């Protein structure tokens, strides 16, 4: 009897995580529905102005979407090459003892609080970039994106390295026996075999970059801006949510609903990339 009782409690604990997901989706959808009674979906998706707190409020998600995708793209263009090369180096070039030391140190990059990265982007990286490009404003997407990229390097490198190291040794030895160099083995054997695992690493990195909040809130400015120019300030979806939350917001107002709509959009975006990753992995596994 007691055993049954304990098992039931443990089961409830295990299902709690499902309730969390369910709770997130349910609350986001529930609070967003009244918003779309005010704003037609077409205007929301195609509008180029996002000014929900102004007198003459406009609700076009495009500027926020643009800021989010732009900062994510910059971050990924840093994190994916750097992380992948570092992973290949750690898995194929270094001795095990050195790897045991380097990997945890690299992972510390992901442990630093994001608000500290925001400080670093605003007060260290931006002045540094201004020396190269003097016209650069104090707030810009570039420095926020670059710092975000460094922040997610460990997500890419750690999981990719695990995937590369789990490639069976006989495949690598077969490649070496045929006279392939280390470089060739990495690119022709190890990476194709580990690709499925590396995709999950990339997807996690993308999810992190899309949802990153503090770095962009601090260093990228908070004006919604429909631009593809990384030297300009812009707001991301997350920065908008922070901006609104900092103020006093009555429950049920259109401003309150707008942060839920923004959150829902963000969640949907993350979901899209995750589905894309799943599809890539399955497609790749079929080819094998």
């Amino acid at each position, binding site marked *: 009897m007691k055993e049954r009782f304990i098992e039931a409690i443990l089961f409830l604990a295990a299902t709690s995580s499902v309730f*969390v997901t369910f709770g997130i989706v349910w609350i986001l959808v529930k609070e967003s529905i009244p918003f779309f009674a005010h704003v037609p979906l077409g205007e929301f998706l195609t509008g180029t102005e996002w000014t929900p707190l102004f007198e003459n409020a406009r609700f076009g998600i495009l500027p926020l979407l643009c800021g989010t995708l732009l900062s994510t793209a910059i971050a990924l263009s840093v994190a994916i090459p750097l992380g992948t090369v570092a992973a290949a180096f750690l898995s194929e070039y270094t001795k095990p003892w050195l790897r045991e030391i380097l990997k945890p140190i690299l992972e510390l990059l992901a442990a630093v609080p994001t608000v500290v990265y925001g400080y670093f982007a605003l007060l260290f990286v931006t002045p540094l970039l201004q020396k190269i490009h003097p016209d650069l404003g104090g707030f810009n997407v570039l420095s926020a994106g670059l710092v975000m990229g460094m922040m997610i390097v460990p997500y890419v490198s750690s999981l990719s390295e695990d995937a590369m190291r789990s490639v069976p040794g006989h495949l690598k030895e077969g490649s070496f026996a045929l006279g392939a160099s280390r470089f060739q083995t990495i690119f022709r054997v190890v990476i194709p075999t580990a690709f499925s695992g590396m995709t999950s690493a990339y997807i996690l990195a993308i999810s992190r970059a899309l949802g990153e909040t503090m770095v962009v809130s601090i260093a990228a400015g908070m004006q919604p801006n429909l631009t593809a120019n990384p030297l300009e300030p812009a707001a991301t979806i997350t920065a908008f949510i922070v901006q609104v939350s900092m103020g006093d917001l009555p429950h049920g107002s259109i401003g309150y609903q707008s942060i839920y709509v923004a959150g829902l959009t963000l969640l949907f975006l993350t979901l899209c990339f995750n589905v894309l990753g799943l599809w890539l992995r399955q497609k790749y596994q079929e080819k094998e």
Partner: protein
Amino acid sequence: MSTAVLQSERAQVLDMRANIRRRQWVDLAFGVAGLLALLFALLTLLALIIDLAMTGVPRLSWEFFTNFPSRFPERAGILSAWVGSFAIMITTACCAIPLGIAAGVYLEEYASKNWLTGLIELNIINLAGIPSITFGLMALGLFVYQFQLGQSILTAGLTLGLLVLPIIIVTTREAIRTVPNSIREAAYALGASRWQMVWDHLLPYSSGGILTGVIISLSRAIGETAPLITVGALTFIAFLPHPPVMAEFPFLSFQWLKDPFTVMPIQMFNWVSRPQPEFHVNAAATGVILLVMTLVMNGIAIWIRYRFRQRLKW
């Protein structure tokens, strides 16, 4: 005739040697690129630490820890922020640790392979990719308005608890998985029930791994800012939460759980967002404290993991 054949063979050998040399160069170049990538990452970390320390460390003083935030940068301190961080950490730990370990034990030891278990596992993986700010939105809608918990320490602790739950579940499962089956069978052979086996054997043997997960999750929670801003953390708090102990019966008070709060990362965000450089110095000092705390916690976790791997040989 034969000299021509010889010469062409010689040319082939030379060609091959050149080819090998070229590939060795490429190998070396890639190695250097890898080393540079690593060095660049480490240098960034170092630059961040040094930049923060140079600005922030001179500002650290006893008064900085015992003063409330203020309009005057030189008088401002982080008393309410660190007390808030501490209180929220305790709430988070109380919520996430039992729940996470219980869920990990269930999934690893009790669950049979069926669609429900599959769903739970898939869900835990996906939770890691959900942006943390959506946890804050969920908490605002559910805890603050639906359950009427207010914009309180309790709400914040629960939010962060749910946020770090997947980390604890995953590390608990990994730790339990390393315990060999012979231990389980030995316990059963002596007549232990399943729960006795888990409680007396599995959990003690995997405590090292579980502890690393707990420390990592708490270090994540202490630096987390976005969900707490969404929940409604205030940036200017010039009072402390109610004390947890009282002079009269029942001596323990939980009034502090309902108090409004601020935490160190939010205080830092507030200061870094101001235009005056004097406040940036305060932000750097807060950053130094946050950085030291997270790095020390992660260092301890790495050390425990290393020690357990060395000592435990089944």
